[in-house]
C-alpha cells in the first residue's frame, strides 16, 4: 500500500492557486481529486508552497468532512443521512451495507473494493433513501435493491 506519492501531479494546482489567497480548501479539493485522499507528503508540499503552516492545513482538512487522510476503495459508497432518508428507513440500508460488506462507517473492505461513508443530505430527498457510489446516484433503496447493486459492482470489478 505504501506507494510513493508523485508530488509532481500537484504542480499545476499549486501554480494556479498557491498565489491566490484564501485558496487552501480549493487546493485540498484538487489534491484529493488527484490522489483520492490527502497524503502527508502533499500537505507538506502545500505548506511549503503556500506558506500556510501544516498545523493550519491539517486544522482545515480535519474540519471538513469531505477530506480523507487515507486511500479509499474502488467504490466509495456515500450513504445519505438526510431527514427524508431517515424517515424512509435509511437505517435499514446502512445495516444492509454493513452486513454485506462487513465494514463500519468510514472503513474500507479488505479487498480494497468498497469504502463506506455516511454523508450529509445529498439533496435527492424525493428518492430517499439514497446513496451515491462514486458519481452515480441510487435512489428508492430497499435492502434487496442495495444488495443487488453491491453484487453487480463486485462482479463488474472482477
Amino acid at each position, binding site marked *: 500500500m505504501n506507494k510513493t506519492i508523485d508530488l509532481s501531479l500537484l504542480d499545476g494546482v499549486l501554480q494556479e492557486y498557491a498565489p491566490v489567497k484564501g485558496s487552501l480548501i480549493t487546493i485540498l*479539493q484538487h489534491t484529493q481529486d488527484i490522489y483520492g485522499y490527502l497524503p502527508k507528503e502533499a500537505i507538506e508540499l502545500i505548506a511549503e508552497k503556500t506558506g500556510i503552516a501544516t498545523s493550519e492545513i491539517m486544522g482545515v482538512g480535519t474540519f471538513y468532512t469531505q477530506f480523507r487522510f487515507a486511500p479509499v476503495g474502488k467504490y466509495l459508497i456515500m450513504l445519505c443521512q438526510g431527514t427524508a432518508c431517515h424517515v424512509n428507513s435509511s437505517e435499514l440500508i446502512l445495516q444492509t451495507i454493513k452486513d454485506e460488506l462487513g465494514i463500519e462507517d468510514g472503513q474500507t473492505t479488505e479487498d480494497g473494493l468498497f469504502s463506506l461513508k455516511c454523508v450529509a443530505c445529498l*439533496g435527492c*430527498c424525493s*428518492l430517499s433513501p439514497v446513496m451515491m457510489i462514486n458519481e452515480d446516484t441510487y435512489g428508492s433503496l430497499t435492502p434487496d435493491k442495495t444488495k443487488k447493486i453491491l453484487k453487480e459492482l463486485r462482479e463488474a470489478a472482477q
Partner: protein
Amino acid sequence: MRIVIGQGSCGIAAGAEKVRKALMNTNITSDISITGCIGMCYLEPIVDIYDDNGGLTRLVKVSETDADAIASYVNTGNKSFVEKLVVTPEDSEFLSKQTRIALRNCGVIDPENIDAYTDADGYTALKKALTEMTPEEVIEVIKVSGLAGRGGAGFPTWFKWNAARQSQGDEKYLICNADEGDPGAFMDRAVIESDPHNLIEGMLIGAYAIGAKHAVVYVRAEYPLAIKRLKNAIRQATEQGIIGENIFGTDFSCDFTIKAGAGAFVCGEETALIESLEGHRGMPRLKPPFPAQSGFWRKPSNINNVETFANVAWIINNGGEAFAAMGTEGSKGTKVFAVTGKVKRSGLVEIPMGKTLRDVIFDIGGGMKTDKPFKAVQMGGPSGGCIPSDLIDTVIDYKALGATGAIMGSGGMVVMDESTCMVGMAKFFLDFTAKESCGKCIHCRIGTKRMLEMLERITNGQGKEGDIELLEELCYSIKDGALCGLGQTAPNPVLTTIKYFRDEYEAHIHDKKCPAGECSALIEYKINADKCKGCTLCARNCPVGAIAGTVKNPHVIDTEKCIKCGKCYTVCKFGAVVKE
C-alpha cells in the same frame, strides 16, 4: 415535436440520462433537449413532449425500455404508444396548484443554454436596473416587495442591502449562500441546476445595489451538477459581457467566482461561511462586527440565500408591488418548499405565503403515501421543529410558524406518519447538529453532545425521572448561550417534540415503550398466529435462529434470542410479524 428530458439531480438519479441516451439511439428526428428539475421528483424520470402548437404531453416514470414507444409516438403522433406513461390529471395538479416565481424557469428551459434564459426574458431585469435605476431605487423596489431572506431567518433583504450599501469601503462583496445544509431540503440545488442564470442575474442586481464589484457563490460540495451548470452559466454570461467590465455598457463591473464548500453544515452561518471562503475552518466569528461592516477579507459584505436572489429579477421586472400583493401582512411573495418524507407526492412546491400547511401537504402533496395517519411535519430541519397534526391549518407565514416553535426555515418540509418516533426524530437531529457543531463554543460543542446522549439513553430504555426537565433546562441554556445560529437553534427539535409529544417521551422513560414502534431497544417482535401461513421465510432470514416453526404452521419468535434486527418484519409477506 420537441422532446425535453428533466435532468435535475433527482431525474438523473432516477435514470433520466439513460432515458436520454436510449432516445438518442432511436430513429427520432425531433429535437431532444434537457431541462432542469420539473419539481415532480416522485415521478422522475420525466419526458415532456411539446407538439408544434406548444401542446404538452408529459410522460412520467419513464425508463430506457420505453424509448421505442416514445419514438413511435413522436414519429406518428399516435398517443396510444405512450398511454400508460402519461401523467394523470391528479398528478398534474401538483404543478398547476403552484405559483412559481423563483422556480418560474425550472423544468421549463434548458439550464445549460444562456439563449434559453434570454428567450424567457432573462437579463432584462439586470439591464433595467443598470440602465434605468439607481442602486437606491433598486433597494427601494426590494423594500416595497417585502422580500425577506429565504435562508431561514427571514430578515428583510432591503435592510441588509442598504446596510452594505451604506458601509464605507472601496471594495465590497456580494455573496450567495448556496450551502444548503438542511438535510431534507433541495430548493437551492434545484434552482442552480435548473435556472443558474436567474441566480446570476439576481446576484448582479444585488451587487449593483450594494456597490460590490465581486460576486461569490459558496456552493456545497455535495452538489456537483449544480456547480457544473453554474460554472457553465458563468462562462456563458462572461462571454456575452453580462459578467465582467462595464456590463451593458454602464460603469458597473462585477466579477463572479464559485467556491465549493467541503462538507460543514455550520458554513450556512454567514460568518462561518466567510471563514470558509477565506480558506479557514468554518468557525463562526463573533458578531458584532456584522458582515455588512466587516465580512469577506474584512470588507463590507452582503450574504443572501439562493432563493432570495432567484426572486430578484422577477421583482425588478414586475415591480415590488406585484410581489407584495402575494402573501400575508408580514410575509410577502412566495416560498419554495421541498416536500418529502411519508407524503404521496414529493418534490418542489412554490406557493404564495398565507397558504396553510394542509394546502401543501394534502392538497398539493396528496397526503400520506402509506395507510398510516399524518403525525407531524418537520420544518426548518435541524434548526426548526415538528408541527403536530392538530396544527395542520397553520398559515405559512414567518410569525405564525414561529409561534408553533418551528420556523419557516429554508423550505425543508419532512412529513411524518404514525410510524415515526418523535423522540427518535429529536435524536436524529441532535445527532446531526452534534456532528456538525464546529466545536468553538461550549454550549453547542458539549451541550448538543450531552443532549444527544440523554436522548440515546431515553430511546434505549435507560431514561429516568427528571430527564425531560433536564433536557428542557439544557435546551433553554443552549439557546441562550451558544455563539451562532446553529447552536442557538439546535434545541428546537427537542423542545417542539417535548412540547407536542411529551407523552411519547414519558412512554419511553416510564413505561419503556416506544409508541411508534421504532426504537428497537423498546420493542418486541411477535408473530400473529392467525396471519402466519408458515412459509418459513422469516425463520430462514433470522440471523440468530430465533424463529421456530414447521412448514405451513404458525411460527414463534424466541424473544430471548431475538436481537430485534427487524429482518422478519421486513421479509414477511403476510404482515404476520408485529412490533409491540
